[in-house]
């Protein structure tokens, strides 16, 4: 279905909300404690915040792409200088759990604790209050929307089921989140991530060719741009911020920069635009 021509500001044709999840070594192995006996896996994940974020920030500066980084608060607590450099260079920070908790498996109280703990760390280390959230491990519970809204979150980038933003309504209170959905096709885990013990992919499928990965991502952008839609990415510094893959991202940014009428904006800015643009017409887009 074609979208309205005036979907984006200033006559822009399509929107790119580039985003990275700076998970580092957080996730299930940290939540169950096994990572502390697994130095290879701990160091593999740490490469993202420790080293790759620096390369990415230089690349994003060169192509002037405002970007959203979703940061588990444990990563901020552990590498505050690296995460502060993201903010110092003009990018946005979003919530991503404390240690990448799977929200759909947490009680309401535990979700509230994770949000409060994260906020305290964002305020202490960065002096800021994030407005957006990407749910770690992709799923959330029935009560998560309310937990997020009560925590002051106004937008999310957690779902997969659309190619443009939409509103997620919280019926009882009349409040809503703007959702900026991602797609697995633009998740670098689906093509490039690889690790042993714990194995990923579970069957130890091969690392994809960079050339065909670039071609897939390029086509995802081209289709979105042609249709006047919005893409965000689920890229990870530890996966696509590695030295050889920076060159892959560089090609993608070059390709997107060469197109006319692309609105590059952080997820928060896109969400604000969407809310303002649809304030008069209500929630449906």
């Amino acid at each position: 279905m074609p979208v309205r021509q005036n979907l984006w500001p200033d006559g822009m044709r399509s929107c790119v909300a580039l985003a990275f999840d700076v998970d580092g070594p957080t996730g299930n192995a940290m939540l169950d404690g096994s990572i502390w006996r697994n130095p290879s896996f701990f160091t593999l994940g740490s490469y993202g915040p420790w080293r790759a974020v620096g390369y990415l920030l230089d690349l994003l500066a060169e192509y002037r792409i405002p970007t959203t980084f979703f940061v588990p608060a444990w990563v901020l607590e552990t590498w505050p200088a690296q995460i502060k450099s993201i903010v110092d260079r003009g990018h946005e920070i979003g919530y991503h759990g404390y240690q990448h908790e799977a929200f759909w498996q947490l009680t309401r109280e535990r979700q509230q604790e994770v949000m409060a703990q994260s906020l305290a760390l964002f305020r202490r280390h960065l002096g800021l209050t994030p407005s957006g959230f990407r749910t770690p491990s992709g799923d959330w519970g029935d009560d998560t929307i309310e937990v997020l809204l009560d925590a002051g979150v106004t937008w999310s980038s957690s779902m997969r089921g659309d190619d443009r933003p939409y509103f997620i309504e919280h019926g009882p209170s009349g409040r809503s989140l703007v959702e900026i959905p991602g797609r697995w096709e633009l998740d670098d885990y689906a093509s490039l991530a690889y690790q042993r013990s714990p194995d990923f992919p579970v069957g130890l499928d091969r690392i994809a060719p960079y050339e065909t990965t670039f071609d897939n991502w390029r086509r995802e952008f081209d289709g979105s741009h042609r249709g006047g839609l919005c893409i965000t990415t689920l890229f990870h510094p530890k996966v696509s911020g590695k030295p050889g893959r920076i060159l892959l991202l560089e090609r993608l940014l070059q390709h997107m920069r060469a197109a006319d009428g692309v609105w590059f904006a952080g997820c928060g800015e896109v969400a604000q635009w969407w809310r303002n643009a649809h304030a008069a017409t209500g929630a449906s887009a």
Partner: protein
Amino acid sequence: MTTMPRWPHGQRMALVVSVDFFDTHAILTQEPRMAGREKSLSVWQYGARRGVDRLLQVFDEYRVATSWFVPGRVALEHRALVQRIHQAGHEIGNASFACEDFDRLSLAQQSECLSAAQAALTDVTGEAPAGFRAPFGNWAPGFTPHLRAAGIEWSSSWRGDDRPYFHPSAAASDAPLIEVPLHYELEDEPYFTFNLYPPVPVGQPRIASYREVLANWRQDFAGFHRFGLCLPLRIHPEILGSAGRIDLLRELLNTVRSHDDVWVATGREVAQWWRTHYRENEPGHPVDVLAPLHQQASQL
């Protein structure tokens, strides 16, 4: 904010080629159902039969000194072959005794594997190894002093950086162990290892496209070159030493040799350089973040 490391003679980057000559031992540890399966095991025996000599020939052609990791048992079982590798000027490192999975061993057992391998390798080559690789990547907290006591100067087992780093020392007076960290995308096994039954890899993915893997490696090389890093190529004689794949190594080395600012060195040389030109890790290094938590986890 990203800093480029310094390398000798103004070279832009370092490249360390390491070869895991594990014969059947790593696969038997990883996949115990492999025991007694002669056809399957012969996949891994191909290294000693053909792959080692083919790799040595290419390294000679390109005048590349490399670091081989050999379990003690492989040195005893393939004494003449390991001597030939050593006499060709390559470094022989310790890869435990029979590719034991250290995650299943106590610290004392890990130390025994290290010592037994160190004795075997010294006996076979006449030189005590200075390098160590944990075949499955991990060791127990407290193992680093055992490595140093055994004469090990450097390791290439862990990950987390694109340049060497220091393992924390037990005492300030100890010369620290240097790590030359690995990257899966620069290993041949994730792309190529294959056996039908028992299945390796477990999900039976297709063998990767040779052409595309070479293209990936060339792009990884270009990235490491751009940022001036230490590229660790990790290969196996039974995988890259086959008649059909050996040219991937040649073509990659052609790319490397088309640059005049790449320091191709053994792990030991890189570790020595790092030790004499750097004093410590930058603050917040993952290895230093992990150290107290690793120690704590072992006491639970």
